[in-house]
């Protein structure tokens, strides 16, 4: 990068299925004020405001224009980004590019979704080709279900393994005061929850959440002058798949799919040989249980076909050697526009040692976050405590 970029502050709302007490702007403003407080900064000091949102998921368009008062963007440069599930991470990348370029020193990244207000399924159907699958669309769950059936047939994993992911996420969420689904559940509970689309049950899927996250990114000088615990953005990577080719579902595909391409590129940038050792914590984007197991393999935390053994052995537990999603992840909180930014912010909190109840019990110097968007692309961000 041309200039080093640090996360110098951030904040989030509590996440819930119902937020009738606030409108979209008021909700988002809660996170922004927390981020400014955290960075000990006023809105006047911010040079640009970027908004991350899957507009129309809550029935409104031009959400960045709507919320100028609440976002603090009045009179400032900025833009809105809409890239699906990845959008929160894409917005962090865009913010980092703004700073790295030298054009801006302090950029506020704002992410929100108020899912209860709109019809996400209907709007998502617009992602599918009108003549090739739109009539059957509206079903992210069907996509992940086929990923699960393909994975089980390929490697001999069982539904118990996805249930273990479901339990880990919700038990971790109980330690995170902001998380949506704080559920004290067991593997049996997960296996007995309502079947949605075999092998995906209710507890295998993410909820529809309302919530927001905000982060402030700054250049090295500002970060060192103003922030006691800056977290450095060391590398970012985005990779797209092609339209219609849904090979992420295909457990044994030999093609260079987006998730593996993205991981190998970011590892190459950083010189990572063994990601499970190099990174101390992972915050990954897992809208369904099976995606977490597939991410383990695509990230190279284990060999292909061994992802389900990692969860079985408890390797990715909060106190395990490779902690994955100590926050509870997307399975516990999914306010889509903010979900991928929450991954980055939660990873930053782990590096600062400020995660509170869900802080992993070891030194955290480096973290990797992922994001996933339909129809198949990934964004990854690598963070570190120091610039070494």
């Amino acid at each position, binding site marked *: 990068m041309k200039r080093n970029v640090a996360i110098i502050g951030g904040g989030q709302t509590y996440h819930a299925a119902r937020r*009738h*007490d606030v409108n979209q702007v008021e909700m988002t403003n809660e996170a922004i004020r927390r981020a400014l407080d955290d960075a000990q900064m006023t809105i006047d000091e911010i040079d640009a405001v970027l908004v991350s949102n899957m507009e129309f998921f809550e*029935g409104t368009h031009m959400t960045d224009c709507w919320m100028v008062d609440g976002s603090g963007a009045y009179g400032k440069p900025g833009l809105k980004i809409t890239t699906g599930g990845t959008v929160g991470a894409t917005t962090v990348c865009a913010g980092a590019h703004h700073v790295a370029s030298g054009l801006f020193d302090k950029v506020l990244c704002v992410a929100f979704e108020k899912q209860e207000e709109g019809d996400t*399924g*209907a709007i998502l*159907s*617009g992602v599918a*080709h*009108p*003549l*090739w*699958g*739109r*009539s*059957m*669309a*509206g*079903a992210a*769950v*069907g996509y992940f*279900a*086929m*990923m*699960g*059936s*393909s994975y*089980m*047939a*390929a490697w*001999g994993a*069982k*539904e*118990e393994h996805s249930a273990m992911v479901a339990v880990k996420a919700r038990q971790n969420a109980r330690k995170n005061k902001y998380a949506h689904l704080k559920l004290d559940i067991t593997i049996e509970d997960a*296996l007995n929850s*309502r*079947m*949605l*689309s*075999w*092998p*995906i049950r209710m507890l295998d899927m993410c909820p529809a959440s309302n919530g927001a996250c905000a982060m402030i990114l700054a250049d090295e000088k500002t970060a060192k002058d103003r922030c006691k615990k800056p977290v450095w953005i060391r590398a970012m990577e985005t990779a797209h798949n*092609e*339209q*219609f*080719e*849904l090979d992420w*579902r*295909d457990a044994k595909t030999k093609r260079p799919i987006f998730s593996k391409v993205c991981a190998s590129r970011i590892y190459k940038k950083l010189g990572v040989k063994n990601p499970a050792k190099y990174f101390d914590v992972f915050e990954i984007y897992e809208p369904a249980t099976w995606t977490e197991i597939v991410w383990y393999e695509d990230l190279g935390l284990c060999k292909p076909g061994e992802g389900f053994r990692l969860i079985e052995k408890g390797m990715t537990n909060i106190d395990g050697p490779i902690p994955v999603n100590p926050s509870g992840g997307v399975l516990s909180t999914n306010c889509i526009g903010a979900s991928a930014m929450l991954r980055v912010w939660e990873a930053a909190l782990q590096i600062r040692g400020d995660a509170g109840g869900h802080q992993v019990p070891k030194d955290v110097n480096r973290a990797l976050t992922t994001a996933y968007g339909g129809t198949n692309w990934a964004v990854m961000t690598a963070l570190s405590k120091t610039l070494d």
Partner: protein
Amino acid sequence: MAKKEKELISVPITVDVPYRFAAGKYMTKFLMELKNNGKILAIKCPKCGRVQLPPRIVCAACHVKNDEWVELSNEGTLVGFTIMYIPLTDPTTGKPHKPPFVYGSVRLDGATSVLDHLVNIEPTMDKVWVGMRCKVVLRPQKDRIGDLSDIRYLEPLPGQKKPREQRSYKDKEQ
């Protein structure tokens, strides 16, 4: 007097977005051959040789023009499936698909890409598995409109049994 819960105002809004979609050159050829002649056409990349479905003008991986049309077999292998228990709405008609039903991803013989569609089979776990051989069943020609739904469903070829290793938790339950 008991404290009244604060009233919060909401407004329901329905948006109906009409649109006209042009299928384009390659998709038109695919849909017209499906509708008029019952053929399933794919396109082969001259460089990497991938046989792509639906046909598209550029190979995304090689950035070259695809120009070799290939007629696919109407038989293939199931590479993934689900039994859907939620009444998904067809956004183009507003009507729900009645659950439970089997939805699968089939790789037709000769194709690199897969095709997702309904599978006409009893929605129980002992009747469906990865690796099952299926064939494409079209609607009668007079009912075809030039849409993927001109394929009525996929249907298992007779005389197959689910392999033992794919049996799983509560196999019989659902």
